[in-house]
């Protein structure tokens, strides 16, 4: 009997103590939960608000880069005009476009690819000069419709330009097709030039300006006939 009573007393005591343990556990759970929340907040501290700031920075950067690209693009058109005023249009164009592209590519993080075409009015011959400032070597194929030869294929290292001569068989519009491989992808650009009894020149430019978090790219063709 005594043993049973003792057992029951002990049993009750244990039960009550157990309940109080649960009470302790409830309070401690709040502290544990708060520690976890605090840890999570501290871990996420650097992430909170970073995205919006990053987006805002990228937006501003894109605006700046876009203005810079617009400026560069416009200058290519202006250089075509400068070259057209020279006695040796083809030679001057080749030199000016290369110097300017090289200047830009060395000054800022820019990648430029251009094709300058000058049509000599006297003999239907035209020269195509490709400038590579993409900071990597490219495989280039240049084709021209109604011309001899129909095309050229060559490898271009970065910061170089290459000129090729074509002879047109017609007076009229000739389509120039530039195909180049870059980063395992083939890119094709096509633009027309006019072969006639008057001089004409064209410049195709594909320029990219990189910033810290963004880049902008533009392609433009300028034509001049005189």
């Amino acid at each position: 009997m005594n043993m049973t009573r003792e057992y029951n007393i002990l049993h009750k005591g244990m039960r009550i103590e157990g309940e109080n343990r649960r009470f302790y556990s409830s309070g401690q759970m709040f502290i544990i939960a708060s520690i976890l929340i605090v840890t999570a907040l501290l871990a996420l501290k650097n992430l909170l608000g970073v995205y919006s700031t990053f987006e805002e920075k990228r937006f501003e950067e894109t605006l700046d880069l876009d203005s810079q690209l617009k400026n560069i693009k416009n200058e290519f058109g202006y250089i075509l005009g400068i070259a057209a005023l020279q006695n040796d249009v083809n030679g001057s164009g080749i030199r000016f476009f290369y110097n300017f592209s090289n200047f830009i590519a060395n000054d800022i993080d820019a990648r430029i690819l251009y094709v300058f075409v000058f049509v000599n009015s006297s003999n239907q011959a035209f020269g195509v000069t490709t400038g590579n400032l993409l900071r990597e070597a490219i495989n280039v194929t240049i084709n021209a419709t109604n011309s001899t030869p129909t095309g050229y294929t060559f490898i271009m290292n970065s910061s170089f330009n290459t000129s090729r001569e074509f002879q047109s068989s017609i007076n009229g519009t000739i389509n120039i097709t530039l195909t180049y491989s870059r980063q395992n992808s083939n890119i094709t650009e096509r633009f027309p030039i006019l072969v006639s009894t008057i001089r004409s020149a064209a410049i195709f430019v594909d320029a990219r300006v990189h910033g810290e978090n963004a880049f902008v790219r533009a392609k433009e063709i300028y034509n001049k006939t005189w």
Partner: protein
Amino acid sequence: MGVSQKENGFVEGVCKRRFSAPKGYIYTLEVLIAISLILVSVVFIFRNPPAKPEFGISTMKIQGLQALEYLDNKGDLKNLVFQENETELENRIKNILPIEAQFETEICNFSCSAANVPLNETVIGIDYYASGYKENYVGKKVRLWIWRRS
């Protein structure tokens, strides 16, 4: 059988007296500690307000860039770059930019001298390229440093 009323009551009474205080007191205290811990850490983490967007700087940058674009579209910039006339270029820019903007210009290729640019101010650098003027190839840029008058 089992436990007598007296024994039973005695045990429960003791236990109630022993554990009634922790039940309300410590439990509340622990919750308060938990809340305070979260509050203190939230205050600590968010004590600095989110970085204020630098609208002033970007506005100045846009103004500087537009001033150069305006001069270029007007036909003045390329001429002044060709002549390397920085003084006249600065006079033209002065008429365009707001009065609180201080600036310095340099016509250069790669290395532009920042001789008159203050070191203790937030200065924005803007580059504007000029390939040439009329039949002359130049291949230079205008570097415009702009900062707010303190």
